[in-house]
């Protein structure tokens, strides 16, 4: 069976794009059969990451794709930017750490919400984050 959804690329350039991006992610989640709880988790996670792009890197990109295997339905979102990057990843993933007087809840919260969370970043190297939600295809 090969009816995977085509992957979708979206720019993240303005605050409005935050809303558009998470809406698109939710749409894809609905199409792939995820329930309301997962849809909301995904939309929140995407919102956090897209917001970070706008806040810290001004602009970036988002790619939403279907990475399902025969056993598992996998929705993946890749969000990346070529902004300043994160100097201390461990600190950034800690609850309450913020360089902008925020709540510091975005990255650690996003990590808890997702079935898969992968982050790659370094000073002057931009930031790349991959998240996935999973469901059994049975």
């Amino acid at each position, binding site marked *: 069976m090969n009816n995977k959804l085509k992957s979708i690329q979206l720019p993240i350039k303005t605050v409005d794009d935050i809303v558009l991006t998470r809406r698109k992610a939710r749409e894809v989640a609905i199409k792939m059969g995820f329930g309301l709880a997962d849809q909301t988790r995904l939309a929140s996670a995407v919102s956090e990451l897209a917001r970070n792009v706008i806040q810290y890197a001004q602009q970036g990109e988002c790619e939403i794709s279907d990475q399902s295997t025969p056993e598992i339905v996998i929705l993946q979102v890749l969000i990346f930017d070529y902004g300043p990057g994160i100097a201390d990843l461990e600190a950034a993933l800690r609850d309450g750490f913020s360089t902008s007087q925020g709540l510091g*809840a*975005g990255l650690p*919260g996003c990590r808890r919400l997702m079935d898969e969370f992968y982050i790659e970043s370094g000073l002057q190297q931009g930031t790349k984050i991959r998240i996935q939600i999973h469901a059994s295809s049975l």
Partner: protein
Amino acid sequence: MNFKTPLLQLGDVLITSIQTDLSDAQVSEFQQDLVRAIGVKNANAVVIDISALDVVDSFMARVINDTARAARLVGAEVAVCGIQPYVAMTLVEMGRQLFDVQTTFNLEQALAAVKAAVDVRL
């Protein structure tokens, strides 16, 4: 983008709502409008309806907290109402107490909560 703060008065309570994510400029406008209205209309309480939000991320949570704090500074009691069940669940799963303002399921409970708080004060 132009933004108008929706405001409804019910006795000494102001009811407002957040319809979608706000930009930084809209956030200031919303907070200024609300604080001004509390003064002009002599309100003792504010209820903020967020039932239109299908996502509350940590930025919007902070906006709501800051707005509530500003309203309290000018003497109004504050409650947030209408949080969607899955939004509430997701906020809990994110792992931190993101709201430091009283939240209720519906408008009626929010009105009761702020009225009780005003009564205690008077």
